[in-house]
């Protein structure tokens, strides 16, 4: 499958092994043959150079962003009087500098994880439905509509979550806090509906199209042989899906979920509009508490970066988000690659 088939191009000779490109280049013009592609040796070098440059630029860009964040954050981190990782204080104006990201980290991680808990089952279910349960035409129509969700601007989601979804869920929030309030996760939160749960639901809707689209592609590529084999052995539809489709697509679904998680971690405007900030000092672990995520806090205060120390503190928070997203994506690659090599 790796060989170039198709019209007999002069560059392919029987004796050429796949890895020996310099030899093939030398032998590319056997006497009497026509160079149909019209590219020759020069094109080869140019394209390879361009590809290397493109890859190099992208890697450099990521590195420079990381370096920029680190350089601007460093002075503020040095002068920080509070523990950056365990403190929840945020006093960045005035003479003393004390700031910590404990609360930000908790709210970011909680809102993203809860969003994934809602989004992944729904996205996987939709993908399975579209690829294996409904006729192909209806399936692609459903898929098209889900993909349209990705076209909605995040500010619209934010406003919808604030004005429609939150108030609609208010009775549910009160009921859960009363019934399950003894569990810290469902404990007493804030009065209004601008809590982590509302934000998580909106985030789930926002990452749904990404996970669904990739999962659909992955499930559609399940080898026919596996499916036919399962059915031939007497499996029901669900048993076939469970034994042939899902195991095959697992690494793809994990990769898709990590992509969605990355989006949820970095979502700014929707969270900024929905989530209420609180200033109680400690971290309220409840799903119904308020808070701020890294992205929403930075965006909220971006207009008032009037001193280098203050800017550095916010950039330090941004650096943590950068590292967390990087780690999540690296983990996703690891899982996907490991599965592929099994």
């Amino acid at each position: 499958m790796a060989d170039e088939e198709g019209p007999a191009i002069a560059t392919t000779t029987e004796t050429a092994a796949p890895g020996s490109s310099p030899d093939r280049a030398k032998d590319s013009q056997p006497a009497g043959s026509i160079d149909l592609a019209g590219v020759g040796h020069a094109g080869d070098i140019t394209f390879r150079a361009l590809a290397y440059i493109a890859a190099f630029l992208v890697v450099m860009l990521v590195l420079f962003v990381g370096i920029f964040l680190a350089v601007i954050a460093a002075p503020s981190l040095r002068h920080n009087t509070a523990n950056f990782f365990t403190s929840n204080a945020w006093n960045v104006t005035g003479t003393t500098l004390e700031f910590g990201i404990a609360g930000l980290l908790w709210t970011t991680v909680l809102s993203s994880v809860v969003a994934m808990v809602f989004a992944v089952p729904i996205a996987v279910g939709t993908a399975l439905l579209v690829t294996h349960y409904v006729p192909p035409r209806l399936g692609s129509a459903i898929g098209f509509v889900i993909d349209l969700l990705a076209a909605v601007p995040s500010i619209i989601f934010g406003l919808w979550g604030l004005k429609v979804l939150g108030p609609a869920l208010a009775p549910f929030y009160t009921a859960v806090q009363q019934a399950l309030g003894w569990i810290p996760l469902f404990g007493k939160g804030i009065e209004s509906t601008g809590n982590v749960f509302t934000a998580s639901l909106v985030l789930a809707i926002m990452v749904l199209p990404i996970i669904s689209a990739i999962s659909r592609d992955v499930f559609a590529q399940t080898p026919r042989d596996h499916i036919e084999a399962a059915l031939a052995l007497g499996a029901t539809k669900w048993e076939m899906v469970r034994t042939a489709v899902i195991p095959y697509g697992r690494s793809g679904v994990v990769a898709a979920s990590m992509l969605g998680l990355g989006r949820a971690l970095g979502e700014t405007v929707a969270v900024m509009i929905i989530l209420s900030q609180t200033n109680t000092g400690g971290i309220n672990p409840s799903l119904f508490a308020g808070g701020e995520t890294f992205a929403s806090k930075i965006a909220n205060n971006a207009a008032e970066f009037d001193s280098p120390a203050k800017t550095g503190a916010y950039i330090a928070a941004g650096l943590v988000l950068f590292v967390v997203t990087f780690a999540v994506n690296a983990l996703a690659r690891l899982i996907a690659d490991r599965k592929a090599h099994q």
Partner: protein
Amino acid sequence: MTRVSKLAAVAALSTLSLAACSSSTTTATTATSASGSGPALSCPAGQITAEGSSAQSNAIQDVIAAYADACASKSKIEYNPTGSGAGIKNFNAGLVDFAGSDSALKADEAATAKTRCKGNAAWDLPMVVGPIAFSYNLSGVGKLVLNADVLAKIFQGKITTWNDPAIAALNSGVTLPSTKITVFYRSDDSGTTENVSKYLKANAPTVWTPDTSKTWKGVGGEGKNKSSGVAEAVKATVGSIGYMEWSYATDNKLGIAQIDTGAGPVELTSANVGKAVEAATVTGTGNDLSLKLDYATKVAGAYPAILVTYEIVCSTGLDSTKSAIVKDFLTYFSSEKGQSSLESLGYAPLPSSLRTKVATAVQAIN
């Protein structure tokens, strides 16, 4: 999927969504020109940029549009509401021609500004007065009277229900519900927050113990993004209270508390705000009109919770074409016509005594 069925899906979705929109759209209000002739303008051509306070953003955009009308768009003026801090920083760096700020230049900023203006002083010209409304959401309570002490206690979490004796004492005859008070504040740093904290600190220093700053230092409550977020939250939550610029309170039809400074409840009106501005002292020298607002003013009928934004300009030292436009624009801004047009936007016009001082200072720009 065929193209036809794709188009059909999009068409179906659009019809469904359009059907859901039933309410008629309200037309945007156009700025009506105030009656009476405006000031004599020379309308120079050219372009200037300014940036700064977002609290005066609505006001200055309206005046820019009105000035363009009056001068048949001969010049182009841009104002970017990036925040007072950014405005002063970029003015001092020479990136913009004047800045809008919620507070006058501090000593070190003034020194840098002098260098920026090629050795000439920079002036703080008060131009926009923005009253701060304390809005509440209580069904059945048409008039609510509060004072600084009670407000400070509410914002510090010491008064937690509406029927607290301290609130009832100011509102005899009104039945207050036993609902819990939900406080909404600005989660982003802002000049409005700074002025509220200055007002509370000046009047109730034993209750409002934190330092004045652009960051809200109250206890409890929920932070919302920008005044629009605070206004929406107050509107949506029964038993809530929040502070915001006057225009947001009127736009959202929220009840505005009357403030009792000791001489009886004062309603939030332009005239009452003007009395409070008149009670301010000018701390700048010559044409630098930075004001020290008296938040603890006991002048009868003065509404004390106000915010004044300054236009920070070079007295001399800008490029001559730009200077001419700045001067002409500010002549219009500080004229009676320019100031009275701000009332419909929820700002209060400068009282005439201060307005004439500002107009004189503007004439001295060159």
